[in-house]
């Protein structure tokens, strides 16, 4: 089986959709269930800023959310604003 077909076959068993976007000017990974109500809805940012201990990451998510709450949450993700505190 070639790579394309294999990737396609694997993909059909996944529960999450994934997209890349920016949140407050940072690259963000947004996931949401392919079937509303089953799976994780959330946002992950791999690098917010760097501290003396290393890179700070951010993750905000909910699991098996009701479709209406999922919709509101996806809307709210776009309003996130970060501020570095010491």
């Amino acid at each position, binding site marked *: 089986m070639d790579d394309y077909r294999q990737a396609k076959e694997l993909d059909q*068993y996944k*529960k*999450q959709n994934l997209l890349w976007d*920016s949140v407050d000017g940072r690259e963000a990974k947004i996931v949401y269930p392919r079937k509303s109500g089953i799976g994780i809805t959330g946002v992950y940012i*791999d690098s*917010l800023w760097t501290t003396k201990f290393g890179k700070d*990451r951010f993750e905000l998510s909910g699991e098996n959310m009701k479709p209406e709450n999922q919709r509101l949450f996806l*809307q709210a993700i776009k309003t996130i604003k970060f501020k570095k505190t010491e």
Partner: protein
Amino acid sequence: MQTVLSTIIISVFLCSCRDRYNRYVPTYFDGEQFVERQDSLTPQHKEGIKKVFAFYGVPFRTDSNSVYYRGTIEKELLLNYSKKAMDKDWLATHMFILTQTSCAGHSQQQAFKTLDFGTFTIVVPDSWRKSTAQGIDSYVSNIIIDSSDTLSFDLGHFSNPLSERDPIIFQGKTSRIVDIPTVLI
């Protein structure tokens, strides 16, 4: 007295700038500076930028020739919007959220508030509330939506990247599929 008058005038000026509609001009970067090209506003670009503005919640209006957005947008952000307006993949993948967030008209009547967690703020429906949690080496907390749904966040070095494992497919005489996607690494 003069100070008060000056403050009022400046406030009125700032408010008027914030509420004014500006004509959108496709913006590009030629390697040295931002370049505006009105001739690039094709019907396809126009449809794209309307979707981009809707996605990011930028108030806009249109007429037969142009698209106008409210307030001011920095050149760098306009460049970002212009690229997305012509990016078929971006438009296709974001249609889901766009339709999800714009289809329910009743949500526009809903009251919203800003939750402040110190390191970040988020605008959520008025009924959502903060809840505390204890993290070991990171900042964690919850947002309670209702009796069944809760959001949790983790800000630190080891936040969950929300990656989904590939399912493992066994092939052979007794082919079967082990479904692992419920486990997130």
